[in-house]
């Protein structure tokens, strides 16, 4: 169900662009207005989500403790997996954000012949995830050649590295292959593993199909159904300089690619993709495990009216004595 729905939505977007651009000639809407709206939704939406997370109460430190806590000097502590200082947290976050450390330690359980329940490590998910994320990052940065004049040297260098093998013309990018293969594995994983398939929702399939469609339309546009690239850069430079122009004769494949990207940007803050920002605000990762070293006051504690035993005894001492109940103060 979810698969079909997500797939249909992506197809519907593509058909909508074809109808809008080739049919109705709404090039300005798809080429200028949608990108601006999408970027605005992206920035405002992500900022809103982060502020929301930031305003949530943090009554207690809840880091996952993946190693020995700092305690007595002669017990060796794991300073990164169970950090007690800000430095430890910074290293933990670096490993998490750049290398997906916790995903690397992901495990799986399988029911095998016997029947026998087998627990094992699941490194393929980590591999596909890291290949996908870094490919996407390189592709995104590489695209900055359309949004800058002159193109900054690091971006030119990145493009040089990505097309290092100098295959064909236009040069084949390594990330063309890696992102598609990684995405196909991530999709295959959801479809082929019964447990994963069971918990997969449209919101899991939709980003996969959407990003896959973006990658494929991009590849088609670069190698097969080529567009006037100078015209494309006129559009993008028009966007970033707030002087929008729409040159003629740019193939509809460009508008499909662009609108899919706009969809991704606009959808971003409302979806699981916002883990891009969320990872920095994960309380199980970004808090130091100093529960017993520092006093943490629960922020929603209100002043409780307390009556001590002394006050109680003061009030009832006489009666207690009369009844023969022992008192602390005569």
């Amino acid at each position, binding site marked *: 169900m979810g698969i079909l729905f997500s797939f249909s939505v992506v197809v519907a977007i593509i058909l909508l662009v074809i109808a809008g651009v080739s049919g109705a000639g709404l090039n300005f809407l798809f080429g200028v207005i949608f990108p601006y709206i999408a*970027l605005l939704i*992206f*920035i405002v939406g*992500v*900022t809103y989500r*982060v*502020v929301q997370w*930031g*305003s*949530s*109460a*943090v009554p207690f430190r809840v880091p996952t403790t993946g190693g020995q806590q700092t305690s007595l000097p002669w017990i060796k502590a794991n300073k990164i997996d169970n950090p007690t200082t800000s430095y430890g947290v910074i290293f933990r976050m670096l490993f998490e954000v750049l290398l997906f450390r916790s995903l690397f330690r992901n495990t799986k359980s399988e029911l095998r012949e016997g029947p026998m329940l087998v627990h094992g490590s699941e490194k393929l998910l980590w591999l596909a995830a890291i290949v996908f994320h870094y490919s996407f990052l390189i592709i995104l940065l590489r695209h*900055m*050649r*359309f*949004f*800058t*004049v*002159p*193109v900054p040297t690091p*971006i*030119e260098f990145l*493009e*040089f590295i990505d097309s290092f093998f*100098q295959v*064909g*013309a*236009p040069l084949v990018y390594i990330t063309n292959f890696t992102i598609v293969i990684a995405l196909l594995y991530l999709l295959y994983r959801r479809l082929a593993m019964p447990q994963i398939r069971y918990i997969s929702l449209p919101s899991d399939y939709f980003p996969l199909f959407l990003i896959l469609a973006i990658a494929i339309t991009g590849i088609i546009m670069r190698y097969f159904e*080529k*567009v*006037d*690239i*100078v015209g494309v*850069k*006129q559009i993008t*430079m028009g966007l*970033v*300089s*707030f*002087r929008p122009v729409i040159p003629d*004769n740019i193939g509809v494949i460009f508008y499909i690619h662009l609108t899919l990207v706009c969809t991704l940007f606009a959808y971003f803050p409302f979806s699981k993709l916002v883990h891009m*920002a969320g990872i*920095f*605000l994960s309380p199980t990762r970004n808090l130091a495990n100093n529960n017993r070293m520092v006093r943490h006051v629960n922020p929603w504690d209100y002043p409780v009216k307390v009556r001590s035993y002394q006050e109680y005894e003061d009030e009832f001492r006489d009666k207690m004595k009369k009844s023969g109940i022992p008192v602390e103060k005569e």
Partner: protein
Amino acid sequence: MYDGGKIIIGLIIFIGISIFPFILTMGKAVAKPEPKLDTPEIQKMVEKKCVESKMYMKTEHMVMLNDWRDAVVRDGLRLYKATDGKLYDMSLQNTCMKCHSSKKNFCDQCHNYVAVKPYCWDCHIAPQEGT
């Protein structure tokens, strides 16, 4: 907000990265490239026409040059039959650059604009640009 300072710094970095092309451009208009077609050789032509149609050359010239390179260097074939039946010598320096004699005013115009660095001139000798 807990750790508000750090979160706000993070948000500023995020917004800065998101809009960095806008910051870099600062609303300046960027001139579009003007590849020049007024070389003496082109002006002498009666019918001003490249090997193939303009639109085809615009999007497919890199494929054509790559195919030419493979045909000449690997298979020793030197003749290209255009769609209109005319025969051309497959040569960057003797055919293409005969008309488009200025690399600076023709090739580089668009290539620099979209930051494409073709490796033609790793082997070929780039033409001497007079002025």
